[in-house]
């Protein structure tokens, strides 16, 4: 719980106004969770990506610089043959000559479809060797998640009673 917190927060931040959520498929899968906790993603990479997501939430996703090594806004591809992921943001890390990408969408209007706060929606991830392109099928999968989220706004719900919360906030309703 919050009691074992050793770096006190000195002020409330954007993280109190934005929340991280996991997109969930119709079959109840959480692709971003699977990516972050899967065998292909070393714990060091997971830690780096979670750190980036927390920092983006604290600054506010629309404000966070989007050309950084850690956080980037996708633009339209140069070729029409490539999947268009423009508008999606990616948290990035490099580890042992592999590139790890966690794809997210910023949903300012999340409260309008029942979520507690504007949300950073974690869609899914891709890993690829450095200096290569991932197969387009991987990007199509991410685009499918985005479109499904935009159509259904389906996100994973916690069981409650999480062991640790990064901040002291109101009780879960």
């Amino acid at each position, binding site marked *: 719980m919050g009691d074992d917190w050793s770096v006190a927060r000195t002020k409330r931040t954007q993280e109190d106004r934005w929340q991280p959520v996991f997109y969930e498929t119709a079959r109840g899968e959480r692709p971003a969770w699977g990516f972050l906790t899967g065998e292909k993603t070393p714990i060091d990479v997971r830690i780096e990506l979670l750190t980036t997501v927390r920092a983006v939430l604290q*600054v506010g996703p629309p404000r966070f610089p989007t050309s*950084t090594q850690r956080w980037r806004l996708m633009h339209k591809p140069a070729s029409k043959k490539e999947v268009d992921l423009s508008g999606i943001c990616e948290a990035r890390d490099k580890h042992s000559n592999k590139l790890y990408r966690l794809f997210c969408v910023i949903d300012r209007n999340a409260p309008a479809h029942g979520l507690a706060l504007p949300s950073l929606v974690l869609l899914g991830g891709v890993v690829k060797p450095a200096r290569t392109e991932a197969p387009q099928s991987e990007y199509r999968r991410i685009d499918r998640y985005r479109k499904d989220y935009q159509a259904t706004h389906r996100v994973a719900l916690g069981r409650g009673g999480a062991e640790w919360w990064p901040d002291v906030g109101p009780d879960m309703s």
Partner: protein
Amino acid sequence: MHKSKESAVFAELLAESFPTVEDRAAHEREVAKLVAFAELLIALDEVRAGSKISKAELARRVGVKPSVISRLLDGKGRNVQLDTVADVADALDVYIEMRVRPQPKGKRARHAPIEVLAA
């Protein structure tokens, strides 16, 4: 972080990923550093944009290649060079206040290691 049923999933992953007090403290320090650097770049770029100074013009004033300014203000460099930041601030006719202060004695009252305050 606000507590909601949907953000609880992320909290569960944080709990699993940072199992000890030390892990959590180290994680918070890293988050605080990223936030501070991002806020610093945002603040400088807001001054630049508000003054209607292009990145190319800023580079000319600082005496560096435009790519140096782009890398700094777009956050492309892994490490922010304090030297460049100071030159950019001077060229924008602003200054940056920095203070080194001791941490409070109580462990739970520790501050983030670096923080950018609103002007």
